[in-house]
């Protein structure tokens, strides 16, 4: 999945870095397998086709957000506007498709682009106005939450007149198989994101800005411009997540979404992307998101009281980051 990037090769220690990032993926993947095996053993009802698809299905929204924000986190940034930005995009998809009655495809594209707009504003605030990403996106989180309520007049927008919209998420492209389209879309999106991160200029600059922004700038790259591009690109995923959640629910829920950003960030971190930047992968993020939803689902299946489910989830996040740290210390020693 991961292939060498030009910048990586030029940078001293790039090869070792790559190996390390691979190793973290293996660790995360190993963790996923262990968790999966444990639940399969603990309950005969865990490993069934329908439960398997519903686990994948519940990964879609968080997964989409996490994949997009992987880019931002690799630049050593953070995006807290993911969750409420997603609600705002969901509401906008309702405005475009239901209120304005635009053609479905156009409405979906506009909603995704609206996510890009959110990212663009974040990018300008971070790169040009030099507002720390945490603050810039915290502000955007509040703005988006407020706007979602204002624009929707605090009422959900229903898509029942446009049944085709829901089939984006819940329809079955594969005939005769109850396998939701949303999962297929997530897979396609993951592949596209991985290609962009590993094979394009955008991806290369994402890594190099995260590794050392100053050095990147000195080497003649317009880091401001590229940061804006990266945030905007990542914003498109916020838009897509907004479309996916409203398609799944058949309604745009303006109050839903706060808290989703932290779940998405957790997925990215479990997947081995460093919050300090310069390191990370889409595959890792996808595995991280899967670990989160497999844990959620599995703990429910084996009837762990809900109060404890969050405790366990928190411990898993700590364990993931801790093993990552130990390993890194081991390598550099």
């Amino acid at each position, binding site marked *: 999945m991961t292939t060498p990037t030009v910048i990586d090769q030029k940078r001293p220690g790039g090869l070792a870095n790559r190996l390390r990032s691979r190793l973290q993926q293996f660790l995360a993947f190993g963790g996923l397998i262990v968790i999966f095996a444990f639940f399969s053993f603990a309950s005969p009802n865990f490993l069934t086709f329908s439960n398997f698809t*519903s686990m994948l299905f519940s990964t879609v929204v968080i997964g989409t957000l996490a994949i997009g924000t992987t880019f931002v986190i690799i630049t050593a940034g953070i995006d807290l506007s993911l969750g409420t930005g997603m609600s705002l995009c969901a509401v906008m998809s309702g405005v475009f498709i239901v209120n304005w009655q635009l053609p479905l495809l156009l409405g979906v594209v506009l909603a995704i682009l609206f996510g890009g707009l959110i990212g663009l504003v974040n990018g300008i605030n971070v790169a040009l106005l030099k507002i720390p990403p945490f603050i810039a996106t915290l502000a955007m989180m509040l703005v988006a939450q407020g706007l979602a309520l204002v624009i929707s007049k605090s009422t959900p927008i229903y898509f029942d007149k446009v049944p085709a919209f829901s089939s984006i998420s819940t329809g079955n492209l594969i005939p005769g198989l109850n396998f939701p389209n949303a999962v297929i879309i997530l897979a396609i999106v993951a592949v596209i994101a991985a290609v962009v991160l590993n094979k394009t200029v955008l991806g290369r600059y994402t890594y190099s800005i995260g590794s050392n922004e100053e050095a990147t700038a000195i080497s003649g790259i317009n880091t401001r411009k590229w940061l804006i591009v990266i945030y905007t690109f990542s914003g498109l995923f916020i838009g897509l997540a907004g479309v996916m959640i409203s398609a799944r629910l058949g309604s745009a829920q303006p109050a839903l979404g706060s808290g989703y950003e932290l779940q998405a960030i957790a997925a990215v971190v479990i997947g081995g992307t460093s919050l300090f930047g310069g390191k990370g992968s889409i595959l890792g993020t996808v595995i991280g998101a899967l670990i989160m939803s497999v844990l959620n*689902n599995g703990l429910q299946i084996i009837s762990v009281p809900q109060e404890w489910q969050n405790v366990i989830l928190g411990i898993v996040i700590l364990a993931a980051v801790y093993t990552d740290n130990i390993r890194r210390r081991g390598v550099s020693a």
Partner: protein
Amino acid sequence: MRRKTIGVIAAAAVFAMTLAGCTAGSSGSGSTSTSGGSSSEPYIAIISKGFSQQFWQAVKNGAESEATKEGARITFEGPPTESDVEQQITMLTNALAKKPDAIGFAALDSKAAAPLMEQAKSSKIPVIAFDSGVDSTVPVTTAATDNKAAAAEDAKHLSELLNGKGTIGLVIHDQTSKSGTDRRDGFMDWMKKNSPDIKMLDPQYSNSDLAKAADITKSIIAANPDIAGFYGSNEASAEGVAKGIQESGKTGLKAVGFDSGKAQIDAINSGVLSGSITQNPVGIGEAVVKAAMKAIKGESQPKFIDTGFFWYDKTNIDDPKIKALLYQ
């Protein structure tokens, strides 16, 4: 010199943020509504549990129309989600600071507001609790659905639908508010007492997140192949149960809900949900303002105002009497 400038800017920024915080706090995520304009009108500040769910909009409409009738001025606000206990406390604090003539308050957490209740008492501002009670003797009265009785009615209907046997899943909207615990306990108590052959799984909590409720429902269906029925304890939970059942593709399940809302009504019409309990949100809003006016005038009133509830299903959903209580 430069450090000084930065200091000034920082101070200005902090000041601006404080100001912004105050305004944000006072207007919250809710909107301010006024009727009439004269300042001699009694002012009632209403803090609800939520704002965007249709239920709260219906409560707001009821409160507004009653306020117009009685010549009162009201504001109606609520936190963005029903887990924002702290934010709600801030709203209540700010409302008290405005020295209203009365306060309407629907507590997200029945205990968290107790100190503020004492503060209201010492400033002689009468408090009308609504929707869920507060663990305090301060409120003059509580205008609410008898949630335990309403949940028991839901249990009775689900038991009948299942002929008194089978495994059922419970999706409850939260575990801290009184409406959450009452609707859980009212349902479970009735089942245990009257329908011992129905096996209830441990309740799961949706935090009023529709997507989460749907995922929980699907997990329960996956974990319990013999599942026969579901209970969803509010709008988001019931709609999530319906969504989860549909997504799982499992048929033959009986599910009952609570409240209304467009998706829930659609689910009842299409048969995914067998029926639901509707409260009387407009009536709750009216009762709050009515009780507040009485309290302002110093009239006595009962400690509890039962605003009523009704079972509705496919057969009576279009009955004008029921239809008036349902909101889309």
